[in-house]
């Protein structure tokens, strides 16, 4: 029984949609109870295809120029959504086609309560009102296993975490038991453990309701856990589609192969680097960076009528060494203190503890940030951007500096004519290369890379990682590589430190930590990482809350005992 049948779909934008076409003839079928994964990188047309199905694309300036989208209605009739009038479409949206979006934080109206937004679907499509809406909304929240639903109904989106909000989104969408659910990168903005929860929830609800699902993602690893069928998209075309097993195990198109093989996938410590300092039996050099008992606490200020609420313990007694030519990966979920650690090392956050960096450079520690679009001043040409660190250090931008600039530009594979161009003329990957070159201008010994490849598409990500490895070997750089992405960390880090709630819970050689995690948090983190090898795994829903890192003034964390579980592999002792 075909629920949705899309054939020869063409979508364009702007005044002349036929000319500026971005989806060029996509076709697929979806049966009830079935999940189709749309996989592709940014600009592949996967979201545009999905938004065309419920015709939301009309509101984003797009238009379906050719093709048919046949939806089987509740009453068994078929309707071509391409020609359907807007009034009909708004009756279908929400009631028969539900949609979940990528950013739960921005996808809910900030000035309306969660209850009002969930209730809206019941008002619109079931004609409920008053108390009936509230109780229906409460049931919807219970269905997505949100604890304490009555209190949640009266809350506003900003009072909830991203994971909770995504559950709220799911609750509001499932309110009307849609026959088709479109999930557009629903977990991309979430931490891996939360991602696993949301995936589990979606799979469970799909099985329960028998709805069809279109699951859009850039992460082919995520597909294995949920999809029955896969369609790989590139440049507005479907390059390959088929059953899950066929596509993942026997890919035909080179692009699918590329996505499956040349892009980092998590391999449980089997894909780690083995070129670290001292790996060849030579003597280990002196550390380039030594961090001892680094602690960052933010005081929640007292106000006229409220005494101080204590301190946020953002980073608590973090200690590590970093050798020249070595990468230490710092992994953890959002709010774990990864970025604060980086900022403290650069002196950008108030901290206590000892940080000593050695190196011949003027400023031995440099940093590359996550967002290459926001971390380059749009008014400066590349030449000025690269001159900036030199000038900021109080030096003249002389012939030597100029020579280094040309050398670095060449080393990061940017064309020589880049110097007079501005950041907006470059792609995300190229911009990140500019940021890397800028960080190397002062010949640092340590580079802090804070989620430096996280904003990039997977294949660009792989190339930037290769570049980083090359530069590390050439300049004997020490990297502090901060990331939430286990697969990326596995590829680049010699050693890994796992942080949770501001503290390191486990640290050691990547191979050891990733293949044989000892701390319960590391285990949970690793278990949640999606993997192409794991088909249709079942996750148990966990509704426990993370304890707060806000402690009363004067509070000191208890003494920590470390267990040496392997050579150089330390894990915190856990009190049961």
């Amino acid at each position: 029984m075909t629920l949705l049948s899309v054939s020869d779909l063409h979508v364009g934008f702007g005044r002349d949609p036929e000319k500026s076409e971005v989806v060029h003839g996509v076709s697929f079928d979806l049966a009830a109870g079935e999940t189709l994964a749309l996989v592709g990188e940014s600009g592949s047309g996967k979201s545009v295809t999905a938004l065309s199905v419920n015709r939301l694309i009309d509101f984003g300036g797009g238009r379906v120029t050719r093709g048919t989208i046949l939806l089987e209605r509740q009453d068994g009739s078929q309707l071509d959504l391409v020609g359907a009038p807007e009034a009909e479409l708004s009756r279908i949206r929400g009631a028969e086609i539900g949609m979940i979006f990528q950013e739960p934080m921005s996808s809910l109206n900030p000035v309306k309560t969660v209850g009002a937004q969930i209730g809206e679907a019941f008002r619109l499509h079931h004609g409920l009102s008053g108390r009936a809406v509230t109780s229906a909304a409460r049931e919807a929240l219970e269905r997505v296993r949100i604890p304490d639903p009555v209190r949640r109904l009266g809350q506003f989106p900003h009072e909830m975490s991203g994971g909770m909000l995504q559950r709220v989104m799911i609750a509001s969408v499932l309110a009307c038991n849609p026959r088709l659910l479109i999930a557009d990168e629903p977990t991309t903005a979430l931490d891996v453990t939360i991602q696993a929860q949301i995936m589990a929830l979606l799979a469970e609800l799909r099985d329960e309701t028998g709805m069809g699902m279109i699951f859009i993602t850039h992460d082919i690893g995520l597909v294995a856990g949920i999809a029955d069928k896969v369609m790989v998209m590139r440049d507005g075309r479907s390059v390959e589609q088929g059953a899950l097993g066929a596509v993942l195990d026997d890919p035909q198109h080179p692009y699918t192969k590329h996505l499956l093989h040349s892009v980092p996938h998590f391999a449980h410590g089997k894909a780690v680097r083995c070129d670290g300092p001292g790996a060849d039996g030579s003597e280990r050099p002196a550390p380039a960076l030594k961090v001892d008992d680094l602690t960052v606490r933010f005081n929640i200020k007292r106000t006229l009528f409220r005494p101080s609420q204590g301190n946020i313990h953002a980073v608590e007694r973090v200690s590590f060494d970093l050798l020249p030519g070595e990468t230490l990966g710092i992994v953890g979920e959002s709010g774990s203190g990864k970025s604060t650690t980086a900022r403290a090392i650069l002196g950008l956050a108030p901290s206590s503890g000892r940080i000593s960096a050695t190196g011949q450079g003027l400023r031995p520690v440099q940093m590359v940030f996550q967002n290459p679009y926001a971390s380059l001043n749009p008014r400066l040409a590349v030449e000025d951007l690269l001159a900036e660190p030199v000038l900021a250090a109080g030096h003249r931008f002389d012939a030597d500096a100029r020579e280094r600039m040309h050398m670095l530009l060449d080393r990061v594979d940017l064309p020589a004519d880049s110097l007079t161009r501005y950041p907006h003329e470059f792609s995300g990957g190229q911009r990140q290369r500019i940021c890397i070159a800028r960080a190397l201008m002062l010949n640092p010994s340590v580079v802090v890379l804070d989620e430096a490849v996280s904003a990039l598409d997977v294949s660009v990500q792989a190339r930037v990682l290769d570049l980083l490895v090359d530069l590390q070997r050439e300049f004997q750089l020490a990297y502090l590589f901060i990331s939430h992405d286990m697969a990326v960390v596995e590829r680049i880090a010699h050693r890994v430190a796992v942080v949770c709630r501001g503290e390191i819970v486990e640290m050691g050689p990547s191979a050891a930590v990733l293949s044989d995690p000892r701390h319960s948090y590391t285990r949970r983190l690793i278990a949640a990482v999606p993997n192409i090898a794991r088909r249709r795994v079942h996750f148990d829903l966990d509704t426990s809350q993370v304890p707060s890192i806000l402690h009363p003034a004067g509070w000191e964390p208890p003494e920590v005992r470390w267990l040496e579980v392997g050579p150089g592999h330390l894990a915190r002792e856990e009190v049961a």
Partner: protein
Amino acid sequence: MNTLIRRLAAFPLVLLGVSSLVFVAIRLVPGDAITAMLGTQAGLLTPAQKAALAAYFGLDRPWIAQYWHWLRALLHGDLGISVTYGKPVLEVILQRFPLTLELALLSMAIALVIGVPAGVYAATHAERRSDLVLRIGAMIGQSTPSFVFGLVIIYVLSAGFGVLPAMGTFTPLLKDPLANLGQLILPALTLGAAFAAAVTRIARSAMLDVLSEDYVRTARSRGVPARGVIWRHALPNALIPVVTVSGIEFGYLLGGAVIVEQLFALPGLGRMVLDAILQRDYALVQGTVLFIAFNFMVVNLLVDLTYVWLDPRIRARG
């Protein structure tokens, strides 16, 4: 709550700053109060008589002493005596204020009733002909001086309909609401036109921003019809800049609208303060400026409270 008290605590400080500024500023204007008060007759006075008059009004003492004296009286609720009216300053101000307040409120009501729907309409029809017409209209409304509007309105009414706006003595609202409204509606329209234009422009751009937000798309995906998307989901989010602009404009109007008051012969604060400056009526100028500054702060506070009411995120931070 906390914010409210902190804001109220700042009031005296701001007023002190404003008062000292105006105190000095008005005394830097050449000419003296006695001459201004008595006009040509001042020439008939002997220097001794002038000095006596100055001593009577306390104008012979150093500025600092005058200021201190004035400040101490102020603390006892005494703004001094207006030399031109021969009455307590506060009484003179309060006599004029109802008209100014009413005019400001009426103008704002007109501006919001016209501006918000016009802005929303322009935003939802962005880049179409109706949007262009509204934008040009708003541009004209904002760039035309108010006396031009006022003159056009008066001309059209008198030449076209033979009606003249009721001028002369002002009828308070409570005495005869209809006559009062008849007197104020035209000046309110005059002031409201430019105000409405400002509101239209800001409402349009705020709505355009909000309409491209993710949560608007979410609402559409839920099947909310266009009307509900615009008025229930988008507009409440677009109101904050509208409130900001309206608050500022309203605050200015509370200081009186000199030109429009003059044009329609209305005894408002604007004309009074202008006369007071020309007459070197120090006490009245100081008192009025203080009063206007106080009003401005109250309006600002109301604007901030409106934000809190509109946006729960601000509530959390408060």
